[in-house]
């Protein structure tokens, strides 16, 4: 059966079982997709999977708007990792969620290079091998002056739309340092170097799960995920920490203890 048909069937079964108030999934809309809460009796024909959309932030929004609701959620590998990191920081209550896991297709994995393009429990699809973004090893070949030239050029394109932060499932601070005049002056374009993007990169260490949403949403095409992938490798080497891998592992930068 086609992946989407299998998913529709799984969503229908979950809704019919009556244990959730609705299933959060994507719906085809104007050639793209939007998150949508499917409820019992709804037509599932416009349920969609691609282009992907970060589910964790929408889950957070729905759970806080409806404090009693139990939700089914259609998730990919990245969504699951995002929910795990959010749960560690009390942003979502996993006990109120029933996850329907989708394994990504080969072209999807190529589109946003992912280390683990499937969730821990797969409802539809077959797990594929993770891939490493080839740009990460290419970056390592650059000399110091080339790296400085590369990144200052890239960051000079930024016009501070804050899309990278707004779309990020791990950016949930009420007061964001990127809006603090002390660190990122208002009314200055592009943000001075080094400030905005390096501050954000540091703040995502131990949280960034590599969903690539920041880069996909960047209107200036800044290759942000190269930096995040490098820092993710470092977090694994230095602290043995892989964001989203396990709900048990404690985020290294916010806990006491020195490795």
């Amino acid at each position, binding site marked *: 059966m086609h992946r989407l048909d299998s998913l529709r069937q799984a969503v229908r079964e979950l809704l019919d079982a009556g244990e959730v108030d609705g299933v959060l999934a994507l719906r085809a809309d104007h050639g793209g997709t939007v998150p949508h809460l499917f409820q019992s009796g709804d037509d599932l024909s416009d349920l969609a999977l691609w282009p992907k959309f970060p589910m964790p932030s929408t889950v957070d929004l729905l759970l806080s708007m409806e404090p009693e609701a139990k939700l089914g959620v259609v998730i990919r590998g990245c969504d699951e990792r995002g929910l795990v990191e959010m749960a560690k920081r009390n942003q979502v209550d996993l006990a109120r969620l029933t996850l329907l896991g989708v394994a990504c297709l080969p072209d999807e994995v190529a589109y946003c290079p992912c280390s683990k393009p499937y969730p821990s429990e797969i409802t539809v699809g077959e797990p594929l091998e993770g891939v490493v973004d080839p740009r990460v090893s290419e970056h390592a070949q650059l000399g110091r002056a080339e790296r*400085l030239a590369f990144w200052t050029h890239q960051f000079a394109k930024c016009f501070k739309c804050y899309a990278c932060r707004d779309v990020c499932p791990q950016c949930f601070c009420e007061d964001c340092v990127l809006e603090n005049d002390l660190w990122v002056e208002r009314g200055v374009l592009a943000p001075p170097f080094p*400030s905005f993007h390096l*501050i954000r990169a540091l703040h995502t260490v131990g949280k960034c799960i590599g969903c690539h949403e920041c880069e996909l949403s960047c209107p200036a095409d800044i290759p942000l995920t190269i930096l995040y992938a490098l820092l993710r490798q470092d977090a694994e080497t230095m602290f043995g920490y892989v964001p989203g891998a396990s709900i048990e592992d404690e985020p290294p930068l916010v806990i006491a203890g020195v490795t």
Partner: protein
Amino acid sequence: MSEDFEPRIIGFLCNWCSYAGADAAGTSRMAYPSNLRVVRVMCSGRVSPELVLRTFREGADGVLVLGCHIGDCHYTDGNHRTAKRIPVLRKLLSYVGIDPARLRLAWVSSSEAQRFTQVVSEFTETVRQLGPLELKGKA
């Protein structure tokens, strides 16, 4: 590199150990390079990555972060954060083409006046060799 280059170095010293260590060096009349401008902070854990980045942006050639030895933190585990945060920040600096040797973390207790002068002298020489960090006008 120009012989007369004098690096500008900003040091964030924790109030309880390293600042007292610097004070001890002063009262013992030990000499150390005058390139260091000291900012006293209550804990090395208070030195956020954005603070270090802004310091570089404002023209520092090197940033020195000094705190209590692990186990001696006045706030028990403030320096645990520093111990993990600064190495990650050094990695990031290196990725964007800033020599990570321009950022140094060291532990200096209140009785280690000798060590304080040694760390400052070594770091000043390191940064002098690296030359000025010219970021102004880069973006």
